[in-house]
Every structure is written in structure tokens, then in C-alpha cells.
């Protein structure tokens, strides 16, 4: 059964390169885990086949024949057979325990807490804050990472427990309030890897998805340099109006736009929001129309989110959306 799934998973993986699956590993950690998952699946399939075969065989062979009312031989047990029944599973499990310990050490080696992490992920209800401490870049939801590097990620939570999980990149890790967790990651190939928060965290748990954008070191450096800079100044009159509204209305109370007076860190950093592919952790594509829809009526798009419905005039929303999409 399990093996069948695995096989199907691999077949699907060949047809659709972007299929999100733990059987399509794209990091060294995920590869290690996938290998033990494969051998587990083989052992499990063998076990299930054995039980299924015995069930069918015994049911056919020992069904009561018509008219037979005699009683069968009353055997009560067999110590040797029972020893085999206990011994074989015990040996199999011993093997998998050995694998467990080896892979644990390979995937999650001890962390020297004095080391500066390459990236700090902070979980919020219901978005991800992403910080690169060395370059002081702060962004949200779309996590740019370089490939071929031994990355140390620090996991924090600003409110409840969340969980970082990108299936193709390997092990998940909880983000627990008042506790720093760490995750090692060596990504093998560039690409977009989808993931999601996997610990139930409240109303919008379903829309706390992750988009990891793995890039070559060169591309990553370019992205990082761009995001280190201050926000672009508004390019036209409408965008200027939008900037003014952003600072005057309540937006600036929660959001930060580097290089302006908006400096709050309650909601996602918007310094370079125009450069993101999606908004609201994947609910919508990032474009001016969708930004308008969201700002106009947040509770309809993402009910329960901590951004309330504001009473804004249509023109104001248009201007703010126009301003934000320009922040490439």
C-alpha cells in the first residue's frame, strides 16, 4: 500500500516537475529522509502483503464446509512460532532505529548558539517574517535562499505555535513562542518550492503558505542587494498620493517601508512588496487589482486576518494600491 503510493508519487513527479512531494527531494536533508522513507515503504509493503496473503489464504482454506459440524483440533499456542513472531519485527525495528539515529544526526546536527544564523524566520498569525541578519534585509512570505550553501535557519514565533514545512526541502520545524529552534538546509537545485504552516495556528492556518525561491548564489546576491536599498520613491502623481495616504491613514501604524516614516513591525514589511509574486501567502497573484481588492475589504479575502476592514474612499484605495505595486 505505502509502496504503491511511493511509486505513484515518483511517476507523478516525472510528469510534473513542480509536483510538491516528499518523494521529490531538492535538498540534502530531504534526500536522506526520502531514502529511509523508501526502505520503510518496502518493509511496510512486505508486511502488509504478508498479512493480506495470510488473511485470504486462511479464509479460503479453513472456511467451514457445508454440512461439516465437527470441531477442529484445539491447538492453544506454539512457543517457537510466537518467538519468531516477536523476533522478526523486533529485528526490523532495530534496523530502522539505527537508521533513525544516523539520519537525525545528519539532518539536524547540534547548533552552536553563538553562531549568527543565515536567516531568521518568525511566524505570525498568518504570515512569515523573513530576516537576513548579515545584510539586515527584512521581507515577508517569499523566502529567497541561495543553493549549494549550508544554511542555518533560526525559527521563532511572535504569537502561537507555527510550523515551517516545505516538503521538497525536508524536515519541518515548529516555531514556538519563547523558544528558538534551528534548522539546517542545503538546497540542491534552483526553483520555487511550495510549503505551508503545518501546526494549527488559528482561523487562517490554511492560508499561511510558504514560497521558497531557491536561486544560484549570483541571483540571490542581486536580489539581496536590491532589497537592502530603501523603498523606491513614488514615480507618478497617483503613487505620490498613495504614499501620503499610506503615512496618514492607519497603514503606517502596522507596516514598515524602509526609507519612509513608516517603521512599525506589526504586519509584514512592505519596502519591496511590488517585487513579490503573490500576496497573502499565496491567496492571490500580486498585482494592482488584487492589492486593491485586499485593502478594500481584507475580511472578505482572508476572514479572521488581523488587518481590519477600513473605511476608505475608493480613490484612496486605488492610490495606495498603485503606490505599493510600484515598490519593486
Amino acid at each position, binding site marked *: 500500500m505505502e509502496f504503491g503510493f511511493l511509486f505513484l508519487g515518483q511517476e*507523478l513527479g516525472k510528469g*510534473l516537475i513542480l*509536483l*510538491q*512531494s*516528499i518523494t521529490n527531494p531538492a535538498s540534502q536533508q530531504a534526500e536522506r529522509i526520502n531514502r*529511509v*522513507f523508501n526502505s*520503510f515503504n518496502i518493509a*511496510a509493503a512486505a*508486511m*502488509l502483503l504478508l*498479512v493480506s496473503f495470510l*488473511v485470504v489464504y*486462511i*479464509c479460503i482454506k*479453513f*472456511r*467451514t464446509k457445508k454440512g*461439516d459440524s*465437527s*470441531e*477442529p*483440533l*484445539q*491447538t*492453544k*499456542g*506454539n512457543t517457537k*512460532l*510466537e518467538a519468531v*513472531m516477536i523476533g522478526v519485527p*523486533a529485528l526490523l*525495528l532495530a534496523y*530502522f*532505529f539505527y537508521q*533513525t*539515529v544516523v*539520519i*537525525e*544526526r545528519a539532518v*539536524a546536527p547540534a547548533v552552536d548558539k553563538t553562531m549568527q544564523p543565515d536567516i531568521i524566520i518568525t511566524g505570525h498569525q498568518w504570515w512569515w517574517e523573513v530576516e537576513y541578519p548579515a545584510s539586515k534585509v527584512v521581507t515577508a512570505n517569499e523566502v529567497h535562499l541561495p543553493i549549494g550553501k549550508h544554511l542555518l535557519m533560526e525559527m521563532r514565533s511572535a*504569537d*502561537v*505555535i507555527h510550523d515551517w514545512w516545505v*516538503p521538497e526541502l525536508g*524536515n519541518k*520545524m*515548529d516555531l*514556538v513562542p*519563547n523558544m528558538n*529552534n534551528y534548522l539546517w538546509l542545503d538546497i540542491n537545485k534552483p526553483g520555487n518550492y511550495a510549503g*505551508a504552516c*503545518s501546526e*494549527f495556528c*488559528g*482561523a487562517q*492556518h*490554511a492560508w499561511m503558505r510558504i514560497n521558497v525561491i531557491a536561486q544560484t548564489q549570483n541571483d540571490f546576491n542581486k536580489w539581496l542587494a536590491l532589497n537592502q536599498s530603501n523603498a523606491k520613491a513614488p514615480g507618478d502623481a497617483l503613487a505620490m498620493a498613495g504614499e501620503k495616504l499610506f503615512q496618514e491613514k492607519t497603514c503606517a501604524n502596522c507596516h514598515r517601508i524602509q526609507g519612509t516614516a513608516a517603521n512599525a513591525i506589526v504586519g509584514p514589511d512592505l519596502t519591496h512588496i511590488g517585487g513579490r509574486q503573490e500576496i497573502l501567502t*499565496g491567496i492571490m497573484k500580486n498585482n494592482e487589482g488584487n492589492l486593491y481588492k485586499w485593502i478594500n475589504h481584507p475580511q472578505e479575502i482572508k476572514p479572521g486576518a488581523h488587518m481590519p476592514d477600513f473605511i476608505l474612499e475608493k480613490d484612496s484605495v486605488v492610490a495606495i494600491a498603485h503606490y505599493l505595486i510600484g515598490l519593486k
Partner: protein
Amino acid sequence: MAEIVDIPEPSTSFPGLGVSTDQGLLQWISSVDHKMIGIMYLFVALFFFVIGGLEALLMRVQLAWPLMHFLGPETYNQFFTMHGTTMIFFVAMPAVFGFSVYFVPLMIGANEMAFPRMNAFSLWITFFGGLLLYFSFVAGGAPDAGWFNYAPLNQKNYSSNPGIDYYAMGLLLSGIGSVTTSINLIVTVLHKRIRNMKLNKLPLFVWMVFVNSFLLLAAFPSLNAALAMLLMDRQFHAHFFNTTNGGSALLWQHLFWIFGHPEVYIVILPPFGILSEVFPVFSRKPIFGYSFVAVSSVAIALLAFGVWAHHMFAVGLGNTVDSFFSASSMLIGIPTGVKIFNWLATMYGGKIKFTVSMMFAIAFLVEFTIGGLSGIAFSIVPIDWQLTDTYYVVAHLHYVFIGGTIFGLFAGLFYWFPKMTGKMLDEKTGKWFFWLFVIGFNATFLVQHLLGILGMPRRVYTYPDLPWYGVLNFISTTGAFLMGASILLLVYVIYKSMKRGKEAGNNPWDAATLEWATTSPPPLKNFDELPLVEGPRPLWDWKQTSAPEREKKEQG
């Protein structure tokens, strides 16, 4: 049968209603008879099973297709919380208790439980606990933080409606019922057994219930403590789990799972006991390895307290802790898994009769193996790191709770229904029900393994339209409705059989334990006389001894 052992009548604990007087509902409400209480437990379980099942169906409608707008996130989160809480605490447990309090006295040759009035108290407090939990729907909102209700999401600042207060109070109340029932069952088994029935001659169902009661007594204090602390947090601003004030998020997880994992065994051991009765009876052979089955349940009960952190491999406890709990979880898999082979060996060489009860037992062997194997996947820490909190877990736990507990309970229902009502539970429609349920169940949950592998987290009210998500979820929803239809059919079969089922007689299955020595249904006083007990199959032994030998034994 000759009078051999005198069984005292439970005279002091009667409410004063005669045997023959039919006072209708009042008689049920005021009853302290273990058989009536057992049946009421089963009805409580059925009542909540239908409610919990409807919640599940509504959830499956919402998940039938990507980006559906049938239930909002708030409603969905309340439904999945209530579904889990209901099924564990108000379906699985009352059903297990129902069979336990009905059949433990009968199987050990007693006329009553040790404490009949406490027995009634346990039933009603459990039922009222469930009603209190459901009252939350009209009192401002049901609990919405999942059945294991993690901190700090369970705190007032994250879940401000009163649902979680009702959750805590409801579970505390029904917990009192569970604890008193366990005490009652332990004392009954220790004190009320018929002369000569040593502990190593107990029928395996009684043995499992006995061990299980100790397990329950040891597990519930942890839950009760956690619930009391949670109530203090929410009502009196204590800071046990409130992380914004220095409380601990992980303390709740430890306390909950120290209860929660034994709880899984609490609802599976008695069904194991039922199966250990059903397999021998319909294979016409004694259980294979009585001692192993009995002793391994003790091993499970002890090990159950050393595996809780396997629910927490992803919280960052470190490799040392994870490895310890990995080893203990694998270890507990052995006594659990080997039982499958005990039952197979019981069937081997027998003369198998394919009654509905036996069919559920046989199907259990395959379904529970699937659930057990996916359970082993979670004991391998790196695999757990990938698959925990995904639909793979949802599939796993349903294969254990349905493929294990519910299949066992259905085997028990079809096996004991004739004893409880005097009527056979219709075998022909029963088989229709069996196939519908088995197909529906596997269609619902088999595909969910794949969804987990493809990266779908559990407890999401909707999901993006990723490859295969839509079609797999749609299959799952279709299966859920098949299951729903099969339950309707079951209710009809029960109703029809009670009205005009075939007369059962005392011992329709030619079974070997003492409950089959009395009439069906048994009279208020279960037994007047019973044969001498010489092993776990007293009626079988009695049948085998020739008349002169019997006389000799009676005199000796």
C-alpha cells in the same frame, strides 16, 4: 445444570422497581442495572457518533474541491475540533464502557457491578459532560483549537469565545465518569468473580478491560490537571500556558500527551479484547497464545506512558529526546503488532464461520495493519519530521481509530446484540452494511496518505488547486458519504432487528464464555447457577466433560 456456585443477589442496591414492571423511560433513567446502563452507554455513543459524523460530512463537503466557500474558517475550525473531541471522548469511550459494564459482570459470573449506583452516576456524568460541551454552540461558539487544544492558541487572547471553557468543563465532568467507571470495573473484576475463576482464567475481553482500567486511572490525572490549569489561565489570569506572560507552550503538550497517548490504547485495548472473543468463537478454536495476548496488554499499558513525545518530534526537543521516544514507540509496536499474528494463528486450522461479526474482525486485521504500519512510519523520527501534522497523520489515526477501535466495536455489536436483545442482528442486511462501510472507509482515508506525501497539512479549511489535490479530496469526500449512508443502514438494521429479528436463544454462536449461559436478554438477576469454571472457556469445557465426570466434579 446443577447448582454449584451460589451467586448472591444484589439486594441492597435496587431502586425498588420490580423486574416485571415496565415503567418506560423512567425505568431507564432510574436504573442501576449494569445491563440497562450498558445499553444506555451504547446509545449515548451512537447519539454522539451521528453528531460527530455529521460534522465530519460537512467538513468533507467544504474540502471536496479546492477553494470552496461552504463553511467559513471559523465554523470549519469549530467543527474539526468538535469532531475529534466528540469521537474520542463521547463515542469511543462510552462505546467501550457500554460493552464493559454490560459484559464484564456477565462474563465473570456476577449479578451486578461492584458499585451499581456509581455505575449509573458514571453514565450520566459522562452524558452531561457531552451535553455541556455541545452547549458551547449556543453559548457563543464551540472550541476551535483542535481536540488537543494546543497552547497558547487555547488562551483567551487567541480564542476569546467561551468554547474552550466548555471544552475544559465538559471533559473534566466526563473524565470523572471515566475514572469512576474504571474503579468500578477493577473492583468488580477483583471482587465479583465466580469461585474458581482465577485471573489466568479470565476471558480475554475481561482481562483487557481490567488492564485498561488501570491505564485509564493513571492517564486521566494528567489531562485533568492540564484542564484545571487551562481553566485557571482563562478565568483567573494564571500564566501556566500563557506565553506572553512567561508561560510555557510545551508544558501543555507534555501534559496532554502523557494522557493522550495512553488514551489511544484506552480505546483500542477493549476492542482487542472483543476480537479475542470473536476470533476463537467463529474459528471454533481457543485463542492462540492466551498468555501472550494477556501479558502483552500489560506491556502495552506500561509502555504507553513512555511514548508521549512522539507527538512532539517537530517541536525541537533535540535528537537525544527524539531518539528515546523513537525507541519506545517502536517497542510498543511489537506487542501491539504481534497480536495480529495471534489472531491469524487462531483462525489457522479452524473452521471459520463468516458471520458479520467475524467479517469485521477479519477486515480489522488488514485495516489495523495499515494503521499500525503508518504508525511505525511516525516512530522513525526523520519520516515523522516530514509527515507529522499532514493528511498522512489524518489517514493514520483514522485507520487506527476506525480500522481498529470501530471495527472491533462493530464486531462486538454483531456478536453480542443477540445477547442484549434476544434477537439476531440481521445477518443479510448486516453484510450489506459491512461492505458499504469497508468500501466507504477505505475510499475516504486511503487517498489521504497520498495527500500527506504531496504536502497537504491537516486542519486546513481550504487548499489551493495544486496537482492532484482536487481529485484526491473529491474521492475522499465521496467515500465519507458512503460511510454516512452505511451508518443510516446500520441504524435501520438495528431498528428492524429489535422489532422483528429472529429469536436468538441463549447461545446462538455456540460460544464458550459465561454470558451465554443465561437467557437472552438476561433477567435482572443474571444467573441462578453456573458450571464450575476450569479455564477461559467454561461452557466449552462443560460441554466436553461427560455426565459421570460432571457428577464427580460436583461432589468433589
